[in-house]
C-alpha cells in the first residue's frame, strides 16, 4: 500500500528535493557552461553581501511589494466580499466581472497594463487629461519613481477578485445565528465588521495574507514582460535578478545566481515562519 505514494515521492525527490540540494551545492561553486565546476567556498556569499548593490535593490523592491500588496489585496477583497454579502443587486454579474482577471495569464495582463500606462494613448493619462490634471501625466512604467508602484497596482488588479471570492466563501460559512443576534442587538454594520466578521474569519484572512505574501516574494512574470526590471533597477525583483544572472548576462556562471536563490529561499522560509508565529491564534474561537 506504500506503493500508492511512491510515484509522488519519486517525482518529488527528482524534481523538487534534488534540485533544492543541488542549488545549495551550486552556491559554493562556479559552474561554467559544459559542466566545468570549481569549488569556491563561501566566496559567492561574501561577494553578495559585500558588493552586490543590485541584489539589495532587488531585495528592497521585493520586500516593499510583499509588504504592501498583501494588505491591498486582502483589504480590497474583504470589502468587495462584504458588498456582495450585503445582497446588492447584480451580485452575480459583479462576482464574475471581478473574478475574471484572476484567470488571465500574466503575459496578457502585462501587455494590457503596458497599454494602460502608455504615455500618449494609455487609459491612465487619458483619465488625468479628461479631469484637467495634465500635469500629473507620467510615463508610468518608464520613470524610476513610479514604475514599482505602477506594477504593484497592476498586480493588485489581478488578485483582488481572488481574495474577494475566498472572503465571501468564509463569510457565507459563518453561522447565521451570530450575525442575526448582532442585528437584534442593533449592531451597526461597521461594528459588525470589526467585532464579529473579521475575528470570525480571521484564519481565512491570515491564510490569504500569507498566500499573497508568498506570491509577491516570487513575483516574476509581470515584471519581466512590463519593465524587465528597469528603469534603473527600480522594479528589479529577486526573481528577475536570478533569472538575469543565470540566463541573460554573459557571466557564464550558474553558481552565483544559485547563491542568490539559496539566500532568498532562507529569507522566504524565515518570513513565512515569522508571520505564522505572529498571527498564531492565541485563543481559538469556537462556533
Amino acid at each position: 500500500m506504500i506503493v500508492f505514494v511512491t510515484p509522488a515521492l519519486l517525482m518529488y525527490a527528482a524534481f523538487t528535493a534534488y534540485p533544492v540540494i543541488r542549488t545549495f551545492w551550486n552556491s559554493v561553486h562556479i559552474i561554467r557552461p559544459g559542466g566545468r565546476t570549481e569549488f569556491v567556498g563561501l566566496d559567492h556569499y561574501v561577494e553578495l553581501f559585500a558588493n552586490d548593490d543590485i541584489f539589495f535593490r532587488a531585495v528592497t523592491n521585493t520586500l516593499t511589494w510583499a509588504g504592501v500588496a498583501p494588505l491591498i489585496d486582502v483589504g480590497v477583497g474583504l470589502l468587495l466580499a462584504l458588498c456582495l454579502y450585503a445582497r446588492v443587486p447584480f451580485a452575480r454579474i459583479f462576482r464574475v466581472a471581478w473574478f475574471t482577471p484572476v484567470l488571465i495569464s500574466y503575459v496578457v495582463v502585462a501587455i494590457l497594463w503596458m497599454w494602460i500606462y502608455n504615455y500618449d494613448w494609455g487609459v491612465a493619462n487619458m483619465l488625468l487629461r479628461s479631469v484637467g490634471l495634465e500635469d500629473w501625466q507620467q510615463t508610468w512604467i518608464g520613470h524610476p519613481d513610479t514604475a514599482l508602484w505602477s506594477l504593484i497596482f497592476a498586480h493588485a488588479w489581478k488578485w483582488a477578485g481572488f481574495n474577494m471570492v475566498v472572503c465571501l466563501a468564509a463569510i457565507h460559512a459563518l453561522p447565521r445565528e451570530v450575525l442575526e443576534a448582532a442585528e437584534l442587538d442593533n449592531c451597526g454594520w461597521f461594528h459588525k465588521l470589526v467585532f464579529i466578521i473579521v475575528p470570525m474569519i480571521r484564519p481565512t484572512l491570515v491564510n490569504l495574507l500569507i498566500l499573497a505574501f508568498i506570491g509577491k516574494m516570487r513575483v516574476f512574470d509581470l515584471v519581466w514582460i512590463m519593465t524587465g526590471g528597469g528603469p534603473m533597477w527600480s522594479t528589479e525583483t529577486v526573481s528577475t535578478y536570478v533569472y538575469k544572472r543565470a540566463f541573460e548576462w554573459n557571466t557564464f556562471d550558474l553558481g552565483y545566481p544559485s547563491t542568490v536563490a539559496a539566500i532568498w529561499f532562507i529569507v522566504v522560509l524565515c518570513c513565512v515562519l515569522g508571520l505564522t508565529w505572529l498571527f498564531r491564534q492565541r485563543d481559538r474561537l469556537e462556533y
Partner: protein
Amino acid sequence: MRDTLSTRFLGRTVLLAILALYTCYSAGPFLWIASMSLRTTSEISANAYALPETLHWEKYIEAWTGSNYGTYFWNSTIVVVSAVLALTIIGAMAAHCLARYRFPGNRVVLFVIFSTLIFPPQITIISLFQSLVEYRLYDTLLGLTLVYIAIQLPLTVYILEGFFARIPQDLYDAAKVDGYSHWEIFWKITMPVGMPAIATTVILNFINLWNEFLYAVVLITDESNRTLPLGVQKFMGDQLEDIGMISTGLMIAIVPVIVVYAFFSEKLIQGMTAGAVK
C-alpha cells in the same frame, strides 16, 4: 422612519455606484482589448477608445494564420493535458495513501509536501535547467511536462488529502468485508467518492499550468516548442507597434480560459479558493 429609509436608500445608491466603478476598473480593460481586437491599428490610432464601426473578424484569421498560434496552442494543450492527467492519478494515489493508511512518517511526508508550497521557484529552477540539459530533456515538451507535474503536485496532494480524509471510514470497512483489494478500494471508492475534490484540482491545475510562464521561459527555447504564454510574448515582439493585431492575439489567448470559466465557473471558483478557506 422615513428618514432612516431615505438614508438607507442613499447608502445603497452610493454603494452601488462604488461597485459599478470598481467593475469598470476590473472589467473595463477586457472590453477595451475586445473592442480593439476588432479594429485596425489605423482606426485605433485615430481614437483608441471608440467602439468598432465595422467588425474586422478577419483579423482573427490573420492573427492565427500569420503566426504560429496553431503550434503554440497544440503544445500548450499536449503539455497541460498530460501533466493534469498524470497529476490527478499520481496525486490522488498519494493522497489516498496518506489519508487512509497509517505508516511511520505519514504526517512527516504530508508536512514536507505541504511546506513545498512556500518555496520560491528560483530554488529549483537553475538546477532543473542543469538536470534537464544533462538528461537531454531541455527544450522538450516532455521535460516541461515532468516539471509541471512536480510544481503542481504539492497543492494537488494537499487539497485531495484533506478531502479524502473526510470520507466516512464505514465505506472502507464495508469494502474490506467484501474482499476488495487495495487497488480496487482506490479505484472503486476513493476516486468516485472524491470526485468533487478531484474535479476541483483538475480545473485548478489546468488554469495554473495553462498560464505558466517562468518555467516555460527557462526550459523552452525553440519556436516549435513554445507554449501559449511564450507564444503571446513572441507575437507581441513580432508585431511591434501593431496594437490592433496584438489585441487580436491577446483575445485568442484569453478565449479558452473564458470558455472554461463560462462552463465551470462554480467549480473553478471552488478550485481557485480551495485550501485558503479554513
